[in-house]
């Protein structure tokens, strides 16, 4: 069975943009190891030559006109949702 280490947990957390609290790591490690232990049973199934199914609609290439539609929401409505905004822009901490 696949082993998941605390380093693996930290790596996955980084890939997932999750800054975990130290106290969360060990319980997540156990849970993830158990879940991976369950899903890896799929490796025993022979899928040679089988095409993957990514969607089940039977729809293909649903087009729309290349026209602007604001869906009835204004820029101000959307900016009002942001935790911080200034001068019609969303404000974030220093990036560089």
């Amino acid at each position, binding site marked *: 069975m696949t082993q998941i280490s605390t380093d693996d*947990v930290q790596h*996955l*957390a980084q*890939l*997932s*943009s*999750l*800054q*975990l*609290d130290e106290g*969360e790591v060990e*319980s*997540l490690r156990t*849970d*993830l190891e*158990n*879940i*991976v*232990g*369950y*899903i*890896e*049973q*799929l*490796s025993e*199934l022979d*899928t040679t030559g*089988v*095409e*993957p*199914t*990514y*969607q*089940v*609609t*039977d*729809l293909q290439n*649903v087009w*729309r006109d290349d026209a602007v539609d604001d*869906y*009835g*929401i204004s820029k101000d*409505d*959307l900016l*009002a*949702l*942001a*935790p*911080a905004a200034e001068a019609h822009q*969303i404000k*974030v*901490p*220093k*990036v560089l």
Partner: protein
Amino acid sequence: MTVISEFIGKSARENVQSAILKARESEDFNAILSYSEERALERADKVDSGEITGRLAGVPFIAKDNFLTLGAPTTASSNFLKDFQAPLQATAIEKLEAEGAICIAKANLDAFAHGGSTENSAYGPTKNAYNKEHVAGGSSGGSAVVVALGIVPFALGTDTGGSIRQPASFNNVVGIKPTYGTVSRYGVVAMASSTDTIGVLTSSVEDAETVMGILSGKDTKDMTTLPDFFTPQTLDSPKKIGLIKEFMDEGVDPEVKAATERYVEVLKQKGHVVEEVSMSLLKYALAIYYIVVPAEISSNLGRYDGIRYGNRAEASSLGEVYGLSRDHGFMPENKRRIMIGSYVLSSGFFDAYYLQAQKARTLLVNEFNALFENYDALIGPVAPTPAFKLGENTSDPVKMYLADIMTVPASLAGLPAISVPAGLSEAGLPIGVQLIGARKSDSLLMAIAKEVQ
């Protein structure tokens, strides 16, 4: 329980007020997160004055709190969206409002609809309508309980892997998971886009037909929607139904099996042919689901970064804003699913997990298709057991996932599946039976269920 017809032609204001009163008297079930009383009463007055009309004029309903609605917050039962006031409404809500229905409250769920018991809510678990020591099921647990308690005649839910059907079965109500693409998901918090569906929980199949008839149809705001194909029907000939053998094996609770067998007997008495069928891929369905769905979750939940909306953590750098906002805003189960998604999609593991799962999904779809060449519908239980006790499965995520084992197959194949009441266990807990059909056979499944109820 109540039905839609009891509310038609009455004072809409009184309908709304009495439903809210009943809801407040039932607050110990923790099924409701917030009320939209002010907006509901305004709309009720417009119904009473004749300004708003329609097939559901003055009928109160409750939406799962992952539908964007005006007049109440939309939290998805998460800390991340604790105070989120939507600037728009989901298409499903708009369609119901266009027929005069009135949303009075928002129902509890597992945060971001990740779970099968409503215990993953940031606002505490919902209690089962038949026994407060047991779970409501999930993730649409609140929606099932408000219908079971007779607060409203119908509630909206979402079903990605069983989240309407399983709580419906745990609370003795009807739960409809339609064919993938039947109802627009615009304005509904996304979970796993290739299996997310919107449906309804009701006390009668006829009411479910009414609501599905209103919700169905193409929406340019959701490119996966199908042209409206849903028309209620009644059966004009006996049907051939396959009883899924793997859903009746020794791991299934004997009372659940007995209730399913009793339902099958009634079908036979009505003249239908029921034969045992076997599906060799079913034993892999849960593993496929818990690869594909976390992969899509990890991608869909990338949007919760604390920048454009939702709660932003105090931090000095942008990276910390992302990391801490997400750590504080998500529940443990959200984190598990996001991280499993990152795992199965990461380089080196992609082929072995994600690609293998999507290939296995093809085999599962093919197996269903082959059966529907010979059978009009399939039948089995909804869940292996009646509602389990609160806290019983919370320490073991895999054990919790196993409660979905009978509902995820139809989700992976995009098939319609409905949960209908099939009696109570000796302990007084509800048991549900599931009917699964070929794509777009939603109304046939409901027609079969109407004959038995």
